[in-house]
């Protein structure tokens, strides 16, 4: 009991106190607490930096686009799977769509790069078949968002659908029978029985997704980045990494990270309140 508590203190709460660096000018010799206070200077510098709006916009757009694409698709997949009888087909669809979730980010990104490569990629092979010249997908910033989002959808849709399937299994069969007796078609039953049935689950998942909009993953964006697509692929998380660990500007990087954490927490709380108002379910209900 004591060891894990110490662990939480050291690896979760000490970093929170270390976040005071955001208000200091870090000096290696003086240490974190000995460095000079500079107040809000780091934040002011960051807000005035021309890169600021680009970062916020890239982070926000990438994240919202991801949610907008993956959230409905997972529900569609779950509803479709729920309509068909259990058999080999259903099981294999589930098994296959779930699989990519277990593949590492590095591998998914490598696959994406290989498939889209202008020299070898099968996608360009296919385009070439129709007489379209090869496209360097990763070298063109305009493609970056689509590649990011759709590779994400490819990886996570099956996994997310499982959660909805469990919710669908919990719907009272009597409701379906009643609807059938009343002569409702399959589509109508989906609309009026299934969808309301998974609403609570969907709301929670959406709240969590929207609440994490600014916390979009560093891992994938960083791997898909290259000097050519930076204008669209540089997000707050990757900027923090570069400022802090590559340029050793610890104070500035901490300030940017803190700004992000605070915005994210605020978003989560706001979205949660809204969700509660509208549907009566939120987190902590």
């Amino acid at each position: 009991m004591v060891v894990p508590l110490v662990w939480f203190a050291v690896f979760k709460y000490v970093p929170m106190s270390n976040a005071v660096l955001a208000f200091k000018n870090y000096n290696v010799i003086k240490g974190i607490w000995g460095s000079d206070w500079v107040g809000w200077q780091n934040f002011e510098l960051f807000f005035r930096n021309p890169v600021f709006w680009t970062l916020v916009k890239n982070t926000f757009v990438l994240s919202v686009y991801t949610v907008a694409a993956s959230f409905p698709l997972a529900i569609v997949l779950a509803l479709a799977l729920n309509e068909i009888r259990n058999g080999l087909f259903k099981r294999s669809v589930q098994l296959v769509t779930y699989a990519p979730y277990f593949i590492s980010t590095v591998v998914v990104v490598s696959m994406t790069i290989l498939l889209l490569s202008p020299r070898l990629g099968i996608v360009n092979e296919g385009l070439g078949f129709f007489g379209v010249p090869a496209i360097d997908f990763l070298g063109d910033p305009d493609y970056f968002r689509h590649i990011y989002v759709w590779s994400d959808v490819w990886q996570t849709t099956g996994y997310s659908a499982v959660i909805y399937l469990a919710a669908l299994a919990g719907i009272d069969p009597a409701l379906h029978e009643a609807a059938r007796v009343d002569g409702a078609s399959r589509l109508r039953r989906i609309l009026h029985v299934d969808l309301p049935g998974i609403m609570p689950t969907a709301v929670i998942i959406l709240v969590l997704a929207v609440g994490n909009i600014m916390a979009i993953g560093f891992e994938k964006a960083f791997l898909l980045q290259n000097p050519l697509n930076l204008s669209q692929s540089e997000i707050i998380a990757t900027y923090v990494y570069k400022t802090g660990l590559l340029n050793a500007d610890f104070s500035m990087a901490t300030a940017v990270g803190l700004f992000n954490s605070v915005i994210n927490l605020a978003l989560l709380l706001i979205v949660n309140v809204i969700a509660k108002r509208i549907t009566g379910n939120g987190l902590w209900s």
Partner: protein
Amino acid sequence: MTALSEARTSTSRRTERREARAQRIREPRTDRIFLFCVYLLLAVFLAIVLLPLLYIVASSFSSPEAVSAGRVSFWPVDFSLRGYEAVFANPQIVQGYLNSLFYTVVGTIVSVVLTVAIAYPLSRRTLVGRNVVMTLILFTMLFTGGLIPTYLVVQQVGLLDTRWALIVPQAIGVWQVIIARTYFRTAIPDELVEASQLDGCGDLRFLWSVVIPLAKPMIAVVALMYAIMQWNSYFDALIYLKSPDLFPLQLVLRNILILNTYSGGAIDASVVLQRQQLADLLKYSLIVVASVPVLLIYPFVARYFTKGIMVGAVKG
């Protein structure tokens, strides 16, 4: 979806159909068309996920020449194992593989021990200050110090560029603590604790000889979650490690697959071309080799994973 509920829904559907026939509720014709569309949609989903995987696997079993010429689609061309030979002949990759095994095994053990150690006391109703501790733990899910402050802690503790840097800072997952705590709470009744105390059994002994055997399924799930996380992670290694001989497989993969740093001195043009072709092929084989362990285990654990998510969703 558990097998039980699956069976239940299928039997209920079957009775539904029987009753439907008995009561002469005819399926509207639109339903049949609709059902066809559903099947079609699912087939499309299946194809979209499966084809890229097939393409990678097919390429990995082809000859270097066929891969470089782009002649491979979804079935191996000029079947060869050259790619795999190249993978296992590369010392970086083998070292990375061994490192990853070490991190996964040791990291999982450490994580599970710590998770049980915190989750069990938190599940007991007799613990003073239980809710305060739980709130403090949950709060770390919502708000973190950030990358740099965490990095500085790791630096101060002196873990930089050691194997422990990949194991200790990420040892406990809040989500896993919630799952474990909920499980302990539902599976270990208070009466059991009281009975054992009457028999003069200490807390630690009780935990060891009663709780852990009862919680085996949950521990297996949590261990798998940690293991897969460890196997697939690269970011910690990227920031905390400098020595190449400590690199886990994922970081080696990144260097070879994404940064294209495939070491090998070139001599003349034909050798360069061959090397290039082999390097192309190696990528496909490497992807297969890196993902196989997880994909082999996954069909057996997918069900438990889902259960874990469900348990976590019902906060105790």
